[in-house]
């Protein structure tokens, strides 16, 4: 065999061995600081916390059982889910605070021009809207809560779908899929309740 042949064989063998090592290493190592898993775990905690805050606000501002029950459902489930995300980051040895802007993880895996980066977290209520909810009561508070929560869930579904597409750990993809499905169906309920109060 010529020298070139031997060299080519050695290089090929090395590439093969290193490639296999790399793949197994990547599979078994915890998620990266910049990936969709960590990004979703951080941003969805912030997103969920605001839903909890709004649900608590409306429960203190109306006697309506339908809205209060829905708010109870949202706040207990989202608080529990946020706790799961917090725990993942602790297990992965990653800080709760990312080193990139919120939502920078969305679409990063596909490297399209405008996907995700630097866009605000979708569906979040503004400080002004929260103040409005704080000041409202009765049916006005219910209506405001319902319409804010429709936007909030719509954004949440989009974020969860992005995580289903790009995350690589089963814990993230399965919870994200559950969130996308449950919030999508809850949007219909929110719309019905809002219609009944218009």
């Amino acid at each position, binding site marked *: 065999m010529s020298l070139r042949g031997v060299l080519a064989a050695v290089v090929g063998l090395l590439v093969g061995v290193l490639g296999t090592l790399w793949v197994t290493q990547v599979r078994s190592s915890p998620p990266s600081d910049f990936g969709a898993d960590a990004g979703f775990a951080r941003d969805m905690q912030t997103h969920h916390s605001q839903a909890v805050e709004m649900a608590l606000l409306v429960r203190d501002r109306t006697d309506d059982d339908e809205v209060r029950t829905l708010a109870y459902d949202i706040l207990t489930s989202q608080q529990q889910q946020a706790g799961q995300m917090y725990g993942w980051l602790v297990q992965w040895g990653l*800080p709760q605070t990312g080193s990139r802007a*919120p939502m920078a993880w969305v679409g990063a895996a596909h490297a399209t021009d405008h996907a995700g980066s630097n866009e605000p977290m979708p569906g979040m209520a503004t400080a002004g809207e929260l103040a409005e909810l704080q000041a409202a009561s009765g049916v006005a508070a219910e209506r405001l809560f319902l319409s804010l929560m429709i936007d909030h869930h719509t954004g949440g579904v989009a974020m969860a779908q992005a995580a289903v597409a790009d995350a690589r750990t089963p814990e993230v993809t399965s919870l994200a899929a559950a969130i996308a499905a449950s919030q999508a169906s809850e949007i219909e309920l929110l719309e019905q309740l809002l219609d009944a109060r218009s």
Partner: protein
Amino acid sequence: MSKSSRPHGGTKAGRTKVDEVRQAQRAKERRSRIILVTAVSSVVLLIAGIVAFTVWKDVSGRPTLDAVKTYPVTRDHTTEPVTYAQTPPVGGDHDATWLDCGVYPDPVADELAVHSLEHGAVWVTYRPDLPAEQVDKLEASIPDTYMVLSPFEGLPGPVVASAWGTQLVLTGVDDPRLAEFIRAYRQGPQTPEPGAACTGGSAGDLPPASG
């Protein structure tokens, strides 16, 4: 191949010529082997060098948190005003209500802010005479939740970042260690009550003392 068909085949001079050609051929092969080995090694060395330099540059350029101070602190609830050992306080006894996280243009009650630190917030304080555009810059550089930003009289530096039991005096709003401090301590492992809320508390005023 027949002997007669080979040019200059049978003569001594012909054989010498063939040997010379073969020798030249071997020398040429040796040279190209040396060139190939040198080229491959150079490329490998170059790549290793680039990787090493990149890693070194990244590690050596990273801001350090060596100057962070830690303090042992108590954590009981009290309705009394508290005198804190650190400026601004990093922990200690505090009000039963916590301060809602967010941006405050005026000084906040220490007894409330300390409770937010217990819930995992990072409290960024700045000297009251800090120019407005620098305050804006500070506000833009911090996360939206689990953060309190407020002016504070008598700070040991232009900007100070505090988390439960820990503090870092910064040189100004551009100090790169602020982002590192927030990464390390916002809802960090020092948090006594992980998962506790930084909303639904007080918007800055201490509740009236009872009794």
